[in-house]
């Protein structure tokens, strides 16, 4: 990675990645204006494109594809705890009879309880 020839080769990769990122952005916006029937699908597409773009930036611009082991270990820990924070918090919030029901959505329309009793 440190000799000039290597770097020159990298430059080409950077430009390709750049093109892909621009394309991704255009695609995201296009999908948005096309507005799909299913909101879940639209959300999924937007997030998948964002993840791909982010991986491209991290992988090539930040050279994560060819980093040292130490860096990988640090980032693996971070990723693990990040997922832990997000997943466990969301799980805790959902598995909480008090919160998912009344407290957080206090002034609900009167019709709401009927929903639970079909």
């Amino acid at each position, binding site marked *: 990675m440190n000799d000039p020839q290597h770097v020159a080769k990298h430059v080409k990769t950077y430009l390709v990645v750049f093109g892909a990122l621009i394309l991704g952005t255009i695609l995201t916006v296009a999908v948005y204006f096309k507005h799909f029937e299913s909101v879940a699908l639209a959300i999924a597409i937007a997030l998948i494109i964002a993840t791909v773009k982010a991986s491209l930036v991290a992988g090539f611009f930040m050279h994560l594809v060819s980093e040292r082991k*130490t860096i990988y270990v*640090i980032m693996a*820990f*971070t990723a693990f*705890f990040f997922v*832990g*924070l997000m997943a*466990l*918090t969301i*799980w*805790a*919030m*959902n*598995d*909480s*009879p*008090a*919160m998912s029901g009344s*407290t*957080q*959505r*206090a*002034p609900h329309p009167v019709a709401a309880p009927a929903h639970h009793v079909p």
Partner: protein
Amino acid sequence: MQPTTTETQHHAAHGAHHEELGFWRKYIFSTDHKVIGVQYGLTGLLFLFFGFCLMLLMRWQIAYPGKKIPIVGELLLKVLGDEMANGGVMQPDLYNAFGAMHGTIMVFLAIVPIAFAAFGNFVVPLQIGAPDMAFPRVNMASYQAYFMGGVVMFFSFFIPGGAARSGWTSYSPLATLADPAHHPNGQTFWILGMVFLITSSLLGAVNFIATIIQLRAKGMTWMRLPFFVWAQFVTAFLLLLAFPPLEAAAVMQLMDNVAGTSFFLPTGLMVNGNPPPISGGGSPLLWQHLFWFLGHPEVYVLILPAMGIVCEIIANNTRKPIWGYKSLVYSVLCIGFLSFIVWAHHMYLTGMGTKIATFFQTTTMIISIPSVIILTCLFISLWGGSIRFNTPMLFALAFMPMFGIGGLTGLPLGFNFTDLHLHDTYYVIAHFHYVVAPGTIFGLFAGIYYWYPKATGRCMSEFWGKVHFWSSLIFMNLIFQPMFAQGMAGLGRRMYDGGATYAGFDDPALGVVGVPQIFIDMNRHISWAAWCLGLAQIPFIINFFLSMKQGRKVTSDNPWESTTLEWQTPTPPPHGNFDKPLEVYRGPYEYSVPGKSRDFTPQSESDKH
């Protein structure tokens, strides 16, 4: 040999160059890790004393509710005014402010800075054979951020409305709505102070990890690191990854406080019967999750460095290798790893579902295993040793049962069904104070007595050290042991009148209703023990300062005859630490190796000669 000599001279010239630094660069804006360590240590000890004094005053109100505080009452009245100390009596707002600030100061301004930053800064680079930290200027910035945080916290006592008064946990919505009359209020200052402290910890953590990864001396492999370094390494990771979520939470609470947002304020909130002018839609539980995501790893931030210190001292004073070095290392890694997924055991009472409660209960029980392994290894290390009972060793020995009591009494709090009864009672206070006060703080005292000769070139008095130790040990237990009983009797914490409102009375049908009087009367005994504990610190304070000038001079660079690298430097170590480049040939605890002429073999001693 020729090149080596030149290099030494070159080094010496460098050293001479650094001698010319003026007072400000040398002591105030220093980039030398040892000076920064001492700065952290002195500031931290000052805050430790201050936080302790807050509690001594609160203990008066708890023991003698509504009575004028002797001696200090007048002073409080003069400084803080009628609203806070009317007639020299501690008012509820002041009690709450002192309680919140006692916790905040002790955790974030005293223990973490001393245990992690002070000892870490002073000892870690020396123990791994590095000339300094990897980023000396970042190190300086870290101390300055800490200092600023301390200043902000301290001055919040004197602003209109007083300091933050919603507990060290600052639960929303209480924290946001506790003092609506003032803006900015104590809570605003608390958040700003926390942002400084978090920044400081993050800078420190980056620096420590990078230093330990990059600057280990030649031959200092991972499994040759002293256990203290391992403990600091894991601690740094905890700070690095657990603090940012609290920083995010602090930013959001700051927005709630200043910009009128509702991150943690739910829809339908009422204050004194009126809806506050907010949009609602926020989640109070979100704050608790983000707070305890830091809060629980923070417990291990408090305890791991102390374990590291104790381990060093036990190895040194039993004159034999630590039993199960690898078990210690893997246990500490396990603790670090698991400590991130136990946090919600602080929140059983928020109405969690059974599945998630079971998950957190299980991880909580699992994390006690590596803690027990560490303690067991340390206990077994004592077996068959010819123990030197000097002051640091006494503190280290006391750490083990004290931490053991603290840890084991935590198990009933980790089970959600027993926690329902014990939550928010004095039992909880007793539990975590056993971990932190006679646990961590004893570890810190041990460290101070142990490394004092390296830092100053003089020893602290053994006699006064022992007076300090025995009196502290006795009074610590007299304070916290009765609290277990109080808590199990149902005495709630954070009560302005020490629980008198809930004093039991005889009901003809039900028997005694409320907390039996005997448990409320214990408040007085506890308070007197606390004040005596205050007196017991006087020998330490005098010893600490007097020994700098009058202590016995050390005759060698290695007065405890230790194996680790920090004792291979000149005393006190100069800027740049080591006289000559050194190499490591062996593990950290090679004491009493058969066939050697001395009972200790320093890590840097080669087998060749």
